[in-house]
């Protein structure tokens, strides 16, 4: 049974030790954690590791979560920090395997290949951006967040976010233009 209570209710119950309330939060937001990690890292295995780490960390830190922001904003924070840690610990991954997920029903093999190549190229281009630009681009253009929300998540200022976005968009556009 899915529940129609809001995240705030689930967070309060989870803080009281109702583990299944937290399981419901994982159901609702697990995709967010994995999706953001995947877009930032460009690699399924790393993304799964980071999403898992982030969701367990969120559970551990839940008693300290004061609900000044939404649970999803808080989770974005944890995922981006975990991702940043991973990026700084290791070199960019060589394998940017997104091909498994991107075929669409009804497409001809040629169309699928073209689509996969395009998606791979964008994934490569995003993964090559410096981390601050990458985070800003992913949160704005893949997650649809506002500059103010991104500033809250990253702990930066709105002008700083705008600046990262401006530079990230230029770099990404140039790279994609080269690829075409």
């Amino acid at each position, binding site marked *: 049974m899915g529940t129609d209570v809001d995240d705030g209710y689930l967070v309060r119950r989870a803080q009281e030790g109702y*583990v299944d309330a937290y399981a419901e939060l994982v159901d609702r937001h697990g995709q967010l954690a994995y999706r953001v990690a995947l877009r930032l890292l460009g690699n399924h295995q790393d993304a799964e590791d980071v999403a898992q780490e982030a969701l367990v960390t969120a*559970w551990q830190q839940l008693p300290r979560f004061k609900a000044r922001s939404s649970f999803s904003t808080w989770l974005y924070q944890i995922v981006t920090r975990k991702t940043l840690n991973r990026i700084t610990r290791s070199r960019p991954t060589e394998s940017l395997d997104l091909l498994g997920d991107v075929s669409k029903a009804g497409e001809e093999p040629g169309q699928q290949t073209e689509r996969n190549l395009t998606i791979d190229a964008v994934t490569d281009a995003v993964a090559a951006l410096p981390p601050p630009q990458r985070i800003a681009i992913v949160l704005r253009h893949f997650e649809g967040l506002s500059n103010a929300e991104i500033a809250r998540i990253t702990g930066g200022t709105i002008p700083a976010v705008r600046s990262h976005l401006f530079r990230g968009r230029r770099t990404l556009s140039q790279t994609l233009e080269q690829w075409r």
Partner: protein
Amino acid sequence: MTDPGQPVDDIRQLLNGSTRHLACGADIDELLEQAADGHAGQLTEHQSHCAHCQAAFQEFSRVWEPVRLLAAEHVAVPATLKTAVASQIRKLIADVWYTFHLSDAGAISIAARVVATIAREAARTVPGVRAAFGRSAHNTTADPAEGAALRQHHPHAAAGVLGRTAVVDLAIAAEYGSQLEAIAREVQRRAIADLRAKAGLRDVTVNVTIDDVIT
């Protein structure tokens, strides 16, 4: 600034960092932002009459299209993610066995979280219940030192007792306008019946808290 009348035929040159404005004075980064946000069709008064802006929009929208394609892709979450998280959390909360008894064929144990799940699922079958969450509660007959140690280890630790007794807390969100006391009693009745039938428990206490109503 680009030269007046210069066609936007090399987008890389336009975006190389040294050029900030088009010949018409429009800010390149703002135009790129507008195109990336998918608002290239929402032209300002100036843009609707400016060939430079319209040409730039056309190029920026074209080059940004693959990004939009990727952003629109559904990302399937690995099936293993949720179970891996649940497994790690179980280790963290030091879940203890709630029931334990010996049969001729050997020992039977049922984890506290399973007891809580049975109670929760029973609660969710009651009309008027919109959400139910269960946890195994600290039993007064349990060893206080054991419970304290567990909670010190992790604030979410559940303390249980050995044997065939259980205390379960259920948090319920009910439908607005329902008879709350009747719902609570029915939740208790069904949860206790299920725990006895499915987990072989004898002494069962089910504490029901209705802490929210949903319209």
